[in-house]
């Protein structure tokens, strides 16, 4: 389980996170939602120790993040994390060289799934294909937790559908996923848990399935209600 406990974060004088707490379980898809600048990406960066926090604690399966944690949790940011001059194949080789959890068979499967070619250069890829490569590099790791920052941002509808298909496949099964997105409609039916952020705090945390079944409302309905207040 990923436990985020009362984390605070300041950028200069601006306090972006004012005590954010939530948990994300293995086998569940947790969606962090909030308007731009609310600190969604900062939360993901903080979980991965890519930005320091002022106070609070983040635990992954009860332990603070360390070098070994990167074999069981990975982050897929909205920009590709490989060098533009590398080919997809070289990027895969880089991951294989450094990560024990790299699963080459799954990487090949994802390559076919996304219809990508190993010899293609990262710099020559379209935005949609860049997002797919990013996803491939994260999903091909045998990790327990996946963090995804805006995986649908700025890409065409067909690529979005293809990426959304990943969430229903065995590629994500049994893993804990934390995702931030604006394109909630694409994955609304897949989300298990929703964490709504506003002005640096969690304003609502709810089980999406429960809301759908007991209240007959969608995630978007709840969002509208909360953010219109």
């Amino acid at each position, binding site marked *: 389980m990923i436990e985020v406990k009362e984390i605070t974060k300041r950028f200069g004088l601006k306090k972006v996170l004012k005590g954010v707490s939530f948990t994300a379980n293995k086998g569940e898809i947790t969606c962090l939602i909030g308007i731009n600048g609310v600190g969604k990406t900062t939360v993901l*960066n903080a979980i991965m120790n*890519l*930005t320091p926090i002022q106070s609070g604690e983040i635990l992954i399966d009860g332990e603070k993040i360390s070098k070994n944690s990167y074999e069981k949790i990975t982050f897929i940011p909205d920009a590709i994390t*490989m060098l533009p001059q590398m080919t997809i194949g070289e990027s895969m080789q880089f991951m294989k060289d450094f990560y024990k959890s790299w699963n080459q068979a799954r990487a090949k499967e994802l390559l076919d799934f996304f219809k990508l070619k190993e010899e293609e250069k*990262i710099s020559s890829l379209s935005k949609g294909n860049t997002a797919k490569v990013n996803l491939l590099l994260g999903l091909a790791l045998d990790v327990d937790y996946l963090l995804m920052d805006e995986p649908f941002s700025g890409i065409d509808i067909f690529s979005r559908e293809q990426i959304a298909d990943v969430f229903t496949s065995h590629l994500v099964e049994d893993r804990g996923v934390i995702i931030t997105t604006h394109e909630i409609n694409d994955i609304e039916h897949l989300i298990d848990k929703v964490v709504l952020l506003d002005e640096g705090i969690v304003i609502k945390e709810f089980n999406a399935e429960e809301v759908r079944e007991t209240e007959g409302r969608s995630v978007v309905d709840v969002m509208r209600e909360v953010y219109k207040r």
Partner: protein
Amino acid sequence: MMNYVKLVNFELGRFMKIYLVLIGITVVSQIAGVMVSANSYLNIASEEMNVNSLSMDAFLQMYGVFSMNNVTRTLWFFGPIALCAVTLLIYVLFIWYRDWFGKNTFIYRLLMLPTERINIYLAKATAIFFMVLGLIACQLALIPIEGKVMQWMVPLDLRIDLTTLEVIHSFEYLGIMIPTTFSQFLVHYGIGLMAVLVMFTAVLFERCFRMKGIILGVVYAVISFFAFISPLLINEFVFPMFLYPGELFILECVAGFIVIACAIWTGHYLLNRKIRV
């Protein structure tokens, strides 16, 4: 350890194209320098002896014999050395900043590698150090080749052949780059490595604290500089001429090691606790 080696290899690979171009420029420019210098000398010799009917002895008295000394003082020779030095100096900064800037934020990947983050720091420093040593090795290999080219072009009566060591000694900048004793190597390359590490840590201050970090980085670099020269300052101003040269050398080495250790420790701390993407 393996990850560190892989990172060094990766960092070297990233700079390889530019590095090979630098080596190519050095080889071409310096050999061209030998040819141009030798040709110009031979033209003067031919003119003085054939047109002005100067005897060889008189010519040699007037112009001196040709040697590698005539080449090392030309822009053809030290120009590419300066170019390599400036490129590597810029690269000390660029090696970090290129991971942050641009569309592809490679720093995410580097910081998320399942290895101690200090390995990234040490791998970058090692890569720079290897590149410097590689260029020096090329220069050392080039000097005898240039000597051979000179021998092919200039007749024995008009030239004097210098050994590699004599060429190095005859040109002070080469002497700095290619030390002839181990203690010299320790001093020259130790100071170089220390400067690179201090620069790296200063860059990390900037990357961690941005605008505030520039000031912190500059202050840190100044403190490191004074810490390093503190034995010299003490011997000059606090206890004038109190220490023997040997003692001063040992104290300088200790100060150097302390500065290097502090730079690495601070870099380690910043990468683990304060870095932001």
